[in-house]
C-alpha cells in the first residue's frame, strides 16, 4: 500500500511466501481484482497480477449490483459523515457546505489507510465521503465498498480540474473517484539548526545519514515513502522495483541510517515537530511543509516562517503523488455526498481548503507562479509548489504485486524492529 501524507500510524508487516500464494492463488475475487486492474496481461511481475500505471491505465468495472445513483435526486437531510485523515480538510469549508444545504456534519478521522479500509469493510460504519489513496481504489471498487459516481452531480470535475487528473490513469473516466490533492515528497529542514544548504549538496538525500544531526532526523513512518527515498539516494529511479538486490541495499542503508542518526519515524514530524524544534531535518511531503509555518509556537521566534526550507529535485525527478475522494457504498446520503465532491472542486472552496491544509488541489485556477505572491506559500518554501508538468517527470509509487510488496515490507519490518 502506498503511504499517505496524513497516515498517522505505521505498521510493518511481512507476508510469508505462503500467504502470498494463498492470497494470489485461486479465489474468485482475485479475478475481480485482475479485471479491475485492467484488460489483458502484461506489466506487473511474475504473479499474473496486472498493475495499472501511467503508461497502462485502468478502467474500473461497474458491476450491475453497484450502479451509480440516479440523476436529478434531491439531497438527503444528512448528517453528512466524512471519513478522513486528521487535519486533512478545513472544517470551516465543510461548515459552509453544511450551512448551504441545511445539514449537520461529522468528521471522523483515521490513522492510516489500512485501518480505514478495515473499518469500512466491517460494514458497521456508514460514512458518506471517504478519502482513499489511489492504490486501494481498485480494491475498494472490486469489493463493492465504494460506489460509482454519477457525473451529472459533479460538473466541476471537468470544468476546474487539471485534465490529466480529471481522467487519471488509476481510474480512467473518474468512475469512482475525484482527485483531491497533489504533492511531492522531498526534504524539509530548519535553517537555524542545519548549517548546510541541503539543496546545494551533491546528493541532498545523504543528509539523513549525517551523524552531526543525530537525534534530530526523521523520516515518514511509511515504508513506501521512506524506502523510495533510499532508492532515489542510490540513483535507483524505479521506485516500484522488484529486484531483491535493490531492497537489500535499501534495508542496509536504513539500518545504517538508524545507527548514524538514531532516526525516528513519524507522521507529524514535518508539519508539526519541525516548527517545534523537535527535528532539524525531516522527510517531507510538499503539503506538510506548506502548512508547517502555521505550527510555530508564537512569539518564540522573530519571524519563524523564514526558518524552514524544502528541497525537491529542480529537474522534476523526484517522487510525486495525488489523493482522491470517493463515496462508500454504504453511504446514507449519497446525493449529498456527490454534491460535496462537487463543492470541494469549486475553485474558491478548493483554494480555501488549500490555505488551511497546505495540500494543493489540482485546480486549473491555481497559477503556481502566483502562489507566493498571493501568500498561500511562504517565499522560502516555493520549492514545495506542485506544477502540472512534474506529473510527467516525477516518479509515481504504484500498487506493488503481493510478492514484491511482501519483500518490501519484510525489509521495513526489520528496520522498524530496531534490529
Amino acid at each position, binding site marked *: *500500500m502506498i503511504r499517505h501524507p496524513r497516515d498517522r*500510524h*505505521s*505498521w*510493518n*508487516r*511481512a*507476508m*510469508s511466501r*505462503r*500467504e*502470498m500464494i*494463498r*492470497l494470489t492463488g*485461486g*479465489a*474468485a*475475487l*482475485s479475478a*475481480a*481484482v485482475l479485471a479491475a486492474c485492467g484488460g489483458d496481461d502484461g506489466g506487473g511481475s511474475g504473479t499474473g497480477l496486472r498493475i495499472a500505471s501511467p503508461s497502462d491505465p485502468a478502467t474500473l468495472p461497474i458491476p450491475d449490483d453497484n450502479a451509480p445513483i440516479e440523476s436529478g435526486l434531491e439531497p438527503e437531510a444528512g448528517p453528512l459523515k466524512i471519513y478522513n485523515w486528521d487535519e486533512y480538510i478545513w472544517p470551516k469549508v465543510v461548515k459552509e457546505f453544511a450551512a448551504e444545504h441545511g445539514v449537520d456534519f461529522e468528521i471522523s478521522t483515521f*490513522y*492510516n*489507510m*489500512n*485501518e480505514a*479500509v*478495515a473499518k469500512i*469493510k466491517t460494514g458497521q460504519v456508514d460514512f458518506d465521503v471517504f478519502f482513499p489513496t489511489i492504490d486501494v481504489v481498485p*480494491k475498494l471498487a*472490486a*469489493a463493492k465498498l465504494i460506489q460509482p459516481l454519477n457525473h451529472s452531480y459533479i460538473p466541476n470535475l471537468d470544468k476546474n480540474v487539471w485534465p490529466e487528473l480529471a481522467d487519471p490513469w488509476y481510474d480512467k473516466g473518474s468512475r469512482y473517484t475525484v482527485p483531491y490533492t497533489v504533492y511531492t515528497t522531498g526534504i524539509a529542514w530548519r535553517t537555524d539548526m542545519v548549517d548546510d544548504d541541503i539543496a546545494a549538496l551533491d546528493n541532498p538525500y545523504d543528509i539523513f545519514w549525517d551523524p552531526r544531526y*543525530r*537525534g*534530530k532526523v526523521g523520516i515518514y*513512518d511509511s515504508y513506501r515513502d521512506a524506502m523510495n527515498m533510499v532508492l532515489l539516494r542510490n540513483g535507483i529511479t524505479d521506485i516500484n522495483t522488484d529486484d531483491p538486490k535493490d531492497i537489500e541495499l535499501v534495508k542496509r542503508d536504513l539500518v545504517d541510517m*538508524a545507527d548514524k542518526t*538514531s*532516526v*525516528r*519515524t*513519524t507522521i507529524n514530524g514535518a508539519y508539526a515537530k519541525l516548527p*517545534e*524544534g*523537535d527535528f532539524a531535518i525531516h522527510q517531507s511531503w510538499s503539503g506538510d511543509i506548506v502548512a508547517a509555518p502555521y505550527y510555530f509556537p508564537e512569539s518564540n521566534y522573530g519571524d519563524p516562517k523564514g526558518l524552514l526550507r524544502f528541497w525537491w529535485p529542480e529537474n522534476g525527478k523526484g517522487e510525486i503523488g495525488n489523493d482522491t475522494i470517493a463515496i462508500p457504498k454504504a453511504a446514507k446520503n449519497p446525493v449529498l455526498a456527490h454534491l460535496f465532491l462537487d463543492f470541494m472542486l469549486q475553485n474558491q472552496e478548493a483554494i480555501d481548503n488549500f490555505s488551511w491544509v497546505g495540500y494543493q488541489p489540482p485546480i486549473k485556477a491555481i497559477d503556481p507562479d502566483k502562489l507566493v505572491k498571493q501568500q498561500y506559500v511562504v517565499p522560502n518554501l516555493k520549492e514545495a509548489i506542485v506544477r502540472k508538468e512534474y506529473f510527467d517527470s516525477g516518479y509515481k509509487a504504484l500498487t506493488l504485486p*503481493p510478492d514484491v*510488496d*511482501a519483500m518490501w*515490507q519484510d525489509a521495513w*519490518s*526489520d*528496520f*522498524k*524492529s*530496531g*534490529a
Partner: protein
Amino acid sequence: MRGARRGSRAGRGQTRDAPGEAGGLWSALAAPGLLWLVLLFVVPFYAILALAMGRLDPIFATPVPVWNPVEWDPAALQGVFSDLFGDGALRVVMVRTFLYVFSAVVLSLLIGYPVAYYISRHGGRAKVLLLVLLIAPFWISYLMRMLAWVNLLQDEGYVNRVLMTIGLLDRPRDWLGGSSLTVVLGLTYGYIPFLILPLYAALDRIDKSVLEAARDLGASSFSAFLRVTLPLSRQGILAGSVIILLPMFGDYYTPDLLSGAPRTSMIGNQIDFFVHTSSGGGQKGASLVIVLSLLVSVLMVYYLLTVARAAREARS
C-alpha cells in the same frame, strides 16, 4: 484455627441447609458475571485463534476467521514462533521488551517500596492525604500524564532547563530522540501507582506486634525489617509486580509517545503495526497476540500457584 472454623461451618451447613437452596442462590448470583466473561472474554480468544489460523481475504489480504478448528492452518502462527525463537527481528523486539519491562518493574519496586512502607508505618496524621495523593494519578488519564512528560522533556522544556540551571547538563539532552532510558522511566512513571497500592495493602496488614516481638528479642530495626517485614510483604511485592508487569508487556503507546524510534519499539508496537494492517499482517498480529497471551498466562499461573502455596503454608 481458620481451618477448624471452616470445618465447623461446613458441618452446620450440612445439618441445617437443604444443600441446594443456598448453593442455588450463590451460583445464580455468579451466573451473569460468568456468562459475561465467557461470552466477551473467552470467546474472543477463540476468535483470535480462528483468525490467526484462518484464511486471507483475496482482495485486501486481510485475515478472515475460520471457525472450524479442523480447517485451521497454523502457518502464520508457526512463522511467528520460528521468528521468535530463531534469530528473526521479532526476537530482538522480544528481548528488548523483556529488558524494558524488567528494568521498569525493578525501578518501580525500588522507588515504590519505601513509599508504601512509609505510608503504612509512619503515615500518621498525613496518612489520608498521602493516600489521596497516591490515588490521584488514577484520576488523570495515563496518556495525559505521558503527554505532560513529552512537554517537560522537550529541548527547551523544564527538565532540561532545570538540569542546566543546576549544572548537571551543559546543553539540552535529547530525551525524546529515541532513548531507552526515557521509555523505561516513562513506563515506571506510568505504572508505579498500580504497584504501590497492593504493596501498601500488604505492608499495612502486617501485625505490628510481630515486629515489636522481633525488637524485644534483640533484633536491630534493620534486621527486623529484613527478617520480618520484608518476608511478610513478599506477597505484596509479587502482587504489585505482576499487576504492572503483565500490562506493560502489551504497552505500545508509551514508547510511541516518548520516542517513536525503531530502536525502542516493544512487542506491543509490533502487534499494533500488524493488527492495524489490512494486508497480510493481520494474521501475524493475531499470532503475536496469541504468543503474548501464552506468555502472560504462564506468568499468571506461576503467580497464582505461589499465592496458593503461600496460603497453604499459612494455614498449616
